[in-house]
């Protein structure tokens, strides 16, 4: 329980720090503060898909349905965070570039990612046998994750994008932010990551409880 209270205090601290600590970016102004919410949410989505990939591999190796349940939960949370990143990004786009959607490479990539992981759940709901569903969706999740680094990190850097391509990591893979921005960004990232872990654990507990009930 204590870490959940600490998390609440941490997130409140991040919310205040976002508006007080870093100076607004010179070109975008105050709207640049969206970066501290929008980017961590998108990163958590990638982390969730990575976790889904790892548990899918584990399922195929050990054939334990627990791993399949964990992979499915991680994908569901990944989809939630992708949706949040898309909505928050399109509000930013409307204010900065004039329209909610521009088919910018990063927007197109995230749209494809939404379709890919949407299809994962369509596949899961189409197969009735538990083992067959777990095996098929594990293979699908592994294949789906292979597209993630390409869609998230490569495509936006190949094509001209409205998004700043090197706002977090530059082409030499170096972090390039002044300390107040870096500290606030890492703090926000940590807050969202802990929140993700909490939701993941809750989902897993629910899954265990409902499995117990169906067994009884």
């Amino acid at each position: 329980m204590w870490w959940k209270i600490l998390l609440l205090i941490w997130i409140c601290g991040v919310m205040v720090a976002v508006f007080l600590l870093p100076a607004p970016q010179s070109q975008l102004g105050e709207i640049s503060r969206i970066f501290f919410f929008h980017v961590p949410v998108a990163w958590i989505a990638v982390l969730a898909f990575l976790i889904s990939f790892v548990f899918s591999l584990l399922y195929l190796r050990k054939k334990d349905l627990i791993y399949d349940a964990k992979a499915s939960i991680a994908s569901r949370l990944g989809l939630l965070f992708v949706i949040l990143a898309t909505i928050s990004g399109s509000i930013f786009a409307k204010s900065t570039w004039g329209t909610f959607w521009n088919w910018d490479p990063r927007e197109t990539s995230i749209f494809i990612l939404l379709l890919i992981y949407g299809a994962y759940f369509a596949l899961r709901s189409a197969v009735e046998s538990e083992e067959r569903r777990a095996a098929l969706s594990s293979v699908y999740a592994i294949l789906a994750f292979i597209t993630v680094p390409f869609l998230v990190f490569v495509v936006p850097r190949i094509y001209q994008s409205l998004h700043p391509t090197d706002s977090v990591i530059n082409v030499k893979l170096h972090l390039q932010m002044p300390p107040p921005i870096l500290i606030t960004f890492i703090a926000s990232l940590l807050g969202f990551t802990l929140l993700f872990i909490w939701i993941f654990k809750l989902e897993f507990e629910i899954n265990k409880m409902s499995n117990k009930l169906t067994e009884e």
Partner: protein
Amino acid sequence: MSSNYVTMIVTLVIWIGLFFYLLRLDRKIKKLEKKM
């Protein structure tokens, strides 16, 4: 629209989204508790 309002709307969208997801989990838990 002022940039501060846009930042506020984006922040609210993210937290309201997470809140509704947690609300959905809460409902699931209540349903399971009733069954138990």
